C-alpha cells in the first residue's frame, strides 16, 4: 500500500481575508481596464469597501486561533490587533486620498490596487510565522510601495524618491535574505517555531551563525522601520512621495514591521544564549533613533520632512517595548500591550497630521510657513492639526500620552530607568518642533495670497477620516481599555 501524501487541510475561513484581499485588488485592476475613463474614480470607494470586507473576514478568521498554510501563518491575538490597526490605517489612507489623487492626476485603478496589495503584504507580514512567508510578504509590501512612491509620473521629486527608496530598499533586502540564509543554515528550518525548538541544541558554531543571521535580519527591519542608523532614506522618501502614500508608509509599514519583528524576537528571546546583554544593541538603536529623530526635526521647514524625522523618533520609542519583550520575560505582557497601544496611537496621530496636510496642501508645497494663520482661515483644520501635534508631543488626555506612559512604565518595570529618562527628555525636545506648527497656525498672520485664494473644499471622505481619527485620538486617550479590551 502506498501511503497517501497528507494534504494540509485548508480552512477557508482562516485564509479568506488574505485570499479575498488579493482577488479584490486584482479585480480592481481589471475593472479599471474596462471602465470608461470618467467612471474610473469608482476604484477608491471600491477599495474602501474591500477594506471593510476584509475587516469583517478577519474578525471571522480570528475567532479561533489557528495556523493556516501548514503553520506558515499564525492567527494569534497579537496578530489580530496588528491587523486591526493596519486595516484602520489602510481605510483612513483611502479616505484621505481622493482629493490628492484627483489633483495630481494619479491613475485611480492602479493606485487603489497597489494600496490594497501593500495592505495584503502588511497583514501577511503581521501573521507570518515563517521566514519565507515573511520575506515574500515584505516584498509584496515593499514593491507596491516603491511603485506608489513614484506614481506621480510628472513629478521628478516623486520619481527621485522612488529611485532612492527602491535602491536602498533592495540593498537592505539583500542583507535580510542573507540573514535568513544564516538562520536557516544554523537550524535547518525556516519556521520560527522550529527554530526556537532547535536553538537550545545548537552548538558553538551554529550559535555564531544565529547571531550573525539575526543581526542581519534585525538590520533589514531597522531599515523598514526607519530606525537610526538605517533611517536616512526616510526623510527623502517621505518628502518626495505623494502625501497619502507618505502617510501609509509612515504608519502601515511600521505597524507591520513591528509585528513581524515581534514574532522573530519572540522566537529567539527564550534561548539561554540570549542574555539581557545581547539585546543591548536594541537599546543603542532606540536611543539613536529618539535623539537623531527629535533633534533633526527641529530645523525642518517642510511638514512632511518634519513628520519623517518625528516618525524616526517614534520608532525609537516603540523599539523600547521590543527591547523589554526580548530581555525581561516578566514584563512581556505589559510591554506587548504597550506596543500594540502605541502602534494604534502612532497610526492615528500620523494619519490625522497627514490628513490635514493633504486637506490644506497645494500643489507641490508643504512648507510649514504655508500653514500661517490656518486657525483664521479654517479653524477646524487647524484644531485637528493642533490635536495631532499635541498628541505626538504626548499631552494628556490624548492617545499619545497614554501610549508614552505605557511604554515608559514598561521600561521602568523592566529596569530600564535610563531609557525612560532619555525618552522623556527626547519628548521634551520634541515639544519644540511640534509646538512650532501650532504657533505658526494660531499666531502668525496668514499670507495675503493664502487669505485671498479660496481653499478648495476638504471633501467628504477626507473630512470623515479627520473626524474619525480626531475622535479616536481623544476617546482612546480617555478610555484606552476600549482598544486593549477588544480581545
Amino acid at each position, binding site marked *: 500500500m502506498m501511503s497517501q501524501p497528507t494534504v494540509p487541510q485548508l480552512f477557508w475561513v482562516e485564509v479568506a481575508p488574505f485570499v479575498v484581499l488579493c482577488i479584490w485588488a486584482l479585480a480592481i485592476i481589471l475593472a479599471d481596464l474596462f471602465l470608461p475613463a470618467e467612471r474610473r474614480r469608482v476604484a477608491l470607494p471600491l477599495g474602501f469597501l474591500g477594506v471593510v470586507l476584509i475587516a469583517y473576514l478577519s474578525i471571522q478568521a480570528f475567532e479561533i486561533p489557528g495556523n493556516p498554510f501548514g503553520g506558515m501563518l499564525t492567527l494569534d491575538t497579537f496578530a489580530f490587533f496588528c491587523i486591526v490597526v493596519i486595516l484602520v490605517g489602510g481605510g483612513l489612507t483611502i479616505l484621505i486620498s481622493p482629493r490628492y489623487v484627483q489633483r495630481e492626476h494619479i491613475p485611480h485603478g492602479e493606485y487603489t490596487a497597489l494600496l490594497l496589495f501593500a495592505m495584503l503584504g502588511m497583514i501577511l507580514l503581521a501573521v507570518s510565522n515563517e521566514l519565507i512567508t515573511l520575506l515574500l510578504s515584505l516584498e509584496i509590501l515593499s514593491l507596491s510601495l516603491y511603485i506608489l512612491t513614484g506614481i506621480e509620473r510628472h513629478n521628478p521629486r516623486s520619481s527621485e524618491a522612488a529611485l532612492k527608496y527602491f*535602491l536602498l530598499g533592495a540593498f537592505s533586502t539583500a542583507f535580510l535574505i542573507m540573514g535568513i540564509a544564516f538562520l536557516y543554515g544554523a537550524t535547518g528550518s525556516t519556521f520560527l517555531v522550529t527554530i526556537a525548538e532547535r536553538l537550545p541544541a545548537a552548538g558553538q558554531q551554529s550559535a555564531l551563525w544565529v547571531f550573525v543571521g539575526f543581526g542581519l535580519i534585525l538590520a533589514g527591519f*531597522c531599515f523598514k522601520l526607519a530606525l537610526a*542608523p538605517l533611517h536616512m532614506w526616510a526623510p527623502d522618501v517621505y518628502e518626495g512621495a505623494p502625501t497619502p502614500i507618505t502617510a501609509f508608509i509612515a504608519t502601515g509599514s511600521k505597524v507591520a514591521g513591528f509585528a513581524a519583528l515581534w514574532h522573530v524576537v519572540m522566537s529567539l528571546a527564550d534561548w539561554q544564549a540570549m542574555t539581557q546583554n545581547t539585546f543591548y544593541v536594541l537599546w543603542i538603536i532606540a536611543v539613536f533613533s529618539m535623539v537623531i529623530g527629535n533633534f533633526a526635526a527641529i530645523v525642518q521647514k517642510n511638514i512632511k520632512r518634519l513628520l519623517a524625522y518625528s516618525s524616526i523618533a517614534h520608532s525609537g520609542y516603540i523599539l523600547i517595548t521590543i527591547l523589554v519583550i526580548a530581555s525581561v520575560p516578566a514584563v512581556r505582557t505589559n510591554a506587548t500591550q504597550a506596543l500594540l497601544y502605541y502602534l494604534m496611537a502612532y497610526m492615528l496621530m500620523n494619519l490625522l497630521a497627514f490628513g490635514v496636510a493633504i486637506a490644506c496642501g497645494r500643489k507641490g508645497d508643504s512648507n510649514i510657513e504655508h500653514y500661517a494663520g490656518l486657525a483664521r482661515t479654517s479653524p477646524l483644520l487647524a484644531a485637528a492639526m493642533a490635536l495631532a501635534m499635541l498628541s505626538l508631543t504626548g499631552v494628556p488626555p490624548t492617545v499619545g500620552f497614554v501610549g508614552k*506612559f505605557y511604554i515608559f512604565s514598561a521600561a521602568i518595570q523592566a529596569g530600564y530607568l535610563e531609557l525612560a529618562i532619555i525618552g522623556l527628555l527626547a519628548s521634551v525636545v520634541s*515639544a519644540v518642533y511640534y509646538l512650532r506648527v501650532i*504657533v505658526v497656525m494660531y499666531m*502668525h498672520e496668514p499670507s495675503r495670497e493664502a487669505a485671498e485664494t479660496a481653499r478648495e473644499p476638504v471633501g467628504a471622505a477626507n473630512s470623515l477620516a479627520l473626524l474619525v481619527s480626531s475622535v479616536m485620538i481623544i476617546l482612546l486617550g480617555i478610555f484606552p*481599555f476600549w482598544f486593549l479590551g477588544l480581545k
Partner: protein
Amino acid sequence: MLDYVWLVPFLPGCAALVIGLFGKWLRTRSGYVAIAAMLGTIVVSLGCFWDILHGKGPFTQHLFTWISVGEFKAEAALLVDQLSVVMLLVVSVVGSLVFIYSTGYMKGERGYARYFAQLSLFAFSMFLLVLADNFVLMFIGWEGVGLCSYLLIGYYMDKTWAADAGRKAFIVNRIGDFGFLLAIFLIFWTSGTLTFSGVFDQAPVIYKYGGGVVTAITLLLFMGAVGKSAQIPLFIWLPDAMAGPTPVSALIHAATMVTAGVYMVVRCNVLYSLAPTSMEIVAIIGAATAFIAASIGITQRDIKRVLAYSTISQLGYMFLALGVGAFAAGIFHIFTHAFFKGCLFLCAGCVIHAMAGDNDMFHMGGMRKQMKITWLTYFAATLAISGFPLTAGFFSKDEILWATFRSGHLILWLVGLVAAFMTAFYMFRSLFLTFHGESRAPEKIKAHIHEMPRSMTFPLVVLAFFSLVAGFFSIPKVLKGSAWFEHFLHPVTNRGAEILHELHVADPTPHVPELELLLMGASTLIVLLGIAAAYAVYIKGWPEIPKAWAQRFGVFYKLSFHKWWWDDLYNSTFVQGTIRLAKAAWQFDIFVIDGVINGTAFMVRSVASRLRKLQTGQLQAYGVGMLIGINLIVLLFLLTR
C-alpha cells in the same frame, strides 16, 4: 452630596463642550452657560464641604478604570477630603466671580465664545487636578490646566509677544512636567501603585527616612511644582503670561493654577516629611523666590507685572511654609491669596479698561475720583496682601513667618520679613501711583476714565470682602482664636508629622505664646514701615520732592516725564541698596536665566543643523550610513554574546 462630586468637573466640562460646539450660535449667551455651570459647582462644593465638616470622612468615587496594565491600574477616581474640599471652594468661588467679571471685560472681543469655552475647559481640568485620587489623574489635570493656560495666554493671537509668551510658558512647563512624570514613574517603580492612599500608607515602610529614593522622588515632584508655580529658576514665564486677558491672569495665573504646585506638595506631605533634605530645599527656594520676586516688583512700571511678581513672591511664601513643615499654613495662604490677588487683578483689569489698554502705572494716577469702587476694593486687597493687621493676609502670612521662626530657620525668617516689607512697599506704591495724586494720563484718555459696569464691580466687592475677613477662619490660638482652618485640615496635613512622630525623629518645639506675639508685633511694624515708606515717596514726595529736585538740578526736570521717577527714587532717602538689588535681580532674570534657556536652544539647533548636513541626498552616502549601521548591529551582537 458627596455622591454628586462627579458633577464638579462634569458641569464645566459640559459647558466647554457645548460652547465649543455651538459657540457660533450661542454667541454672548455662551458666557451665561459657563457661569451657570460654575454656579452649579459652587452648590456641589458647598454640599461636599458640609458633609466633610460633619465628619463624613475621606470619600472616594470610582468612575472607571482608565489604564490597566498587569498589576498596575490607574482609576479615574475622585477623592474628597478636607484638603480637596478647600481647594474646590476656592476654585469654584473665585472661578465663578471671574467668569461673571469676564462677561463685562470681554464684551465685544473677537472670539468671545472661544474664550468661555477655554475658560470652562480650564475649570474642568483644575477640578480634575484637585479631585484626583491618584498621581496619573492629577497629572492629566496638571497638563490640562497648563494647556488651557497657554491657549489663553496666546488669546490675542495677532500679537507676536502674546504668542511668544504662550510658547515660553509651554516650554518652561514641559521642563517641570518632565520632573513630575519622572517622579510618578519612580513612585510606581518603588511602591507598585499610584493612588494617593496606597502610596502614602506604604511610604513609611518602603521609604527610609531621609533615604535617597524618597529624596529623589520629592525633588522631582518639586521640579514639577517649581515649573507650575513659577519658582526660581523657572519663574520667568509668569510675568510674560500677563500677555493674556486680565481675568485669565486673575484666575489662572494668580488664584488657582499657579497654586497647583503648592497643593501637590501638600498632598504629598507624607513623602516630603520623610525627606528632610527636600524640605530644606523647598524652604530655601521658597524664601529666595519670595525675596527676589518682591525686589523686582519694586521697579516695575506695568501694573500687571507688579502683580505678577507679587504672585511669584506670595507663592514663594507658600513654599517657605511647606518647607518648614507648616502645610496647613501654606494652604491657608492659598486660600486668602486667592481672594486678595484675584481682587487685585480684577481691579487692574478695570483700571486697564478705563485707561484704554494702557498698563503703565506712570500714565495713571488720581483714578480714585472716577472709580470709587475699584479704588476701595483695590485698597482693601492691598491691605490684605501687605499683611495689615486683622486682614486675611495678616493671619496667613504671619502664620508662615511664625512657623519658619519656630522651626529654627532664622535666616529664612529674616528674608521673609524683609520680603514682607518690600511687599507692603510695592503694593502701596502701585495703589498710590494708580489711584492717588494727579492724573498723568493724556487728556483724551482722561476724559474716558469711568467706573465699570455692575458685572465687573460686583466680583470686586465680593473678593474684597473676603480679603478682609477670610483671615478670621484661622485666628491663631495666641490671639484667643481657635485656629479652625488648621484644625480642619489636620487629618490631611498632619499625616507626615504623625509618621515622623512614630519614627521618633520629630522634635516638637515648645510653644512660646509671648514670642509669637512679639514676632507678630515685629512683622506688623515692618508692614507699617513699608506702607509709610511708600506713602513718603509717592504721596508726600510726589509733588514736592520732584519740584525740590527740579529747582536744584534743572537737568532732572528736563528729563522726560516718564523717567524722572527713577532719579527721584535714587536720590530720595530710600535705601539705595534695595534698588541695586532689584536691578540685579532683574538683570539676572533677563541675562542669566533667559541666557541659559536660549543657550540650550542654540546648542540644540546647532546639533540639529549638523545632523541635517549629514543628509546630503546622495544615494550612496546613505548606503554607506546603512552599511556602517548594519556592521554595528552585527558586531555588537557578536561582542555582547
